[in-house]
């Protein structure tokens, strides 16, 4: 146990980590988007505005494209230094340069308005596009991986620049009558690792070093339209079932 370092506005880092759990943002008349309730302290004069109509309308229009969860975000503006933290989780900053990054909604903490935030097609994920800095929280340090890779759904934090994440099932383990019983009941031993996300192509995959999920942040529902994943619109039924077909159960048991 050493005596803690005493920090003041002179010694606080600028746009960098204070310790693995706390991040310091320096504002010089600029603006940052942050998730509600993640600011723990600040020096200087700062103003926190909920996103809605008003004088921030123009900023929101250019760099915030998820009107459906605008109420979870605030804009900080002013000058001074601000400390961000999230439930004592690890916090890290990342730089994007003319890139795109998709991240689990609960993990994103703050970002510069030079980035544009959009809802991802994948439900529960958000995409950042552009150039700038953003801050993300994770349970345990973040690990960067290169595709092709298969990852555990709970360990996935996000991915950058790589297309087509898809589901992968250990097929041999899950087909046939026995496989169906195993998967449904766990009898006969399920390893808990029969299902992964698969990434191919060029890019980076971000993983956290634990399988504890961060509580999900609502991203808002997708528009109710046919063809929108998670939209819940009609038209997803496919062809009508033929008489004698058992449907999902039949497929599950490989009949």
């Amino acid at each position, binding site marked *: 146990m050493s005596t803690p370092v005493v920090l003041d506005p002179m010694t606080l880092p600028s746009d960098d980590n204070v*310790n693995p759990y706390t991040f310091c943002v320096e504002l010089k008349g600029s603006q940052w988007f942050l998730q*509600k*309730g993640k600011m*723990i*302290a600040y020096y200087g004069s700062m103003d*926190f505005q909920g996103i809605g109509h008003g004088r921030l309308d123009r900023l929101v229009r250019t760099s915030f494209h998820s009107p459906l969860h605008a109420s979870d975000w*605030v804009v900080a503006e002013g000058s001074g230094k601000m400390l961000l*933290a999230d*439930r004592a989780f690890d916090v890290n900053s990342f730089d994007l340069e003319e890139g795109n990054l998709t991240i689990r909604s609960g993990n994103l903490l703050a970002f510069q308005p030079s980035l544009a935030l959009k809802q991802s097609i994948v439900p529960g994920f958000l995409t950042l596009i552009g150039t700038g800095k953003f801050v993300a929280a994770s349970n345990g340090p973040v690990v960067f991986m290169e595709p092709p890779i298969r990852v555990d759904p709970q360990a996935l934090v996000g991915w950058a620049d790589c297309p087509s994440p898809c589901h992968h099932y250990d097929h041999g383990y899950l087909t046939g009558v026995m496989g169906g019983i195993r998967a449904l009941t766990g009898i006969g031993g399920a390893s808990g690792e029969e299902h992964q996300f698969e990434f191919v192509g060029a890019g980076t995959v971000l993983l956290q070093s634990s399988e504890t999920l961060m509580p999900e942040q609502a991203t808002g529902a997708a528009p109710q339209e046919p063809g929108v994943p998670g939209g819940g619109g009609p038209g997803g039924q496919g062809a009508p079932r033929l008489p004698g077909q058992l449907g999902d159960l039949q497929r599950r048991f490989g009949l």
Partner: protein
Amino acid sequence: MLAVSLAGDAVKAKNGSMVAYDGQVAFKKMSGGGEGIRGMVTRRLTGEQMTVMEVKGHGTCFLADRASEINLVQLQHDTLYVESSNLLCTDAGLRTGTSFTGLRGASQGNGLFTTTVEGTGQAAIVSDGPAVVLRVSPQYPLSVDPGAYIAHQGNVSQSFQSGVNFRTFMGEGSGESFQIRFEGDGLVYVQPSERNTIGGEV
């Protein structure tokens, strides 16, 4: 985890925080925080109860509380203001008491009163994640989220700052509507996590 070496002297620690010890150490529960009848009554009235034990003897005693981080604070004729739930252990030479906090306590959701630790010696406070120590000086006042505040020391005055406007009531609140503003000269301890507070909802 905090290791306390004892050579015949004593410390006051939160009841039940001992996880291991070696040597000859005795534990004695102190009713009312060891502050006498008056202290006991004040604590009961103010809701800042803490159950404290006296740890005395020769040897090393290990203290811990729910795997949270422990921060040591060195006091020299100084007063530390800390929530009783965040105080783990103090030197026997330090006096503890209660004081009124006003609106800050109300916004944190842990009562209108707080615990003071006075004198010269060391105290240990617990936090969710390692605490960040921030200096408050006359030219640099500091604003802190009530949910992240754990303790402060020195000659600091605190005031309550609210950014509530009509938009808060229209459901467009910023979530950062309440802050405690510290002015003067001293240190403020902040944890990288927020308790659930009434203030954090609006």
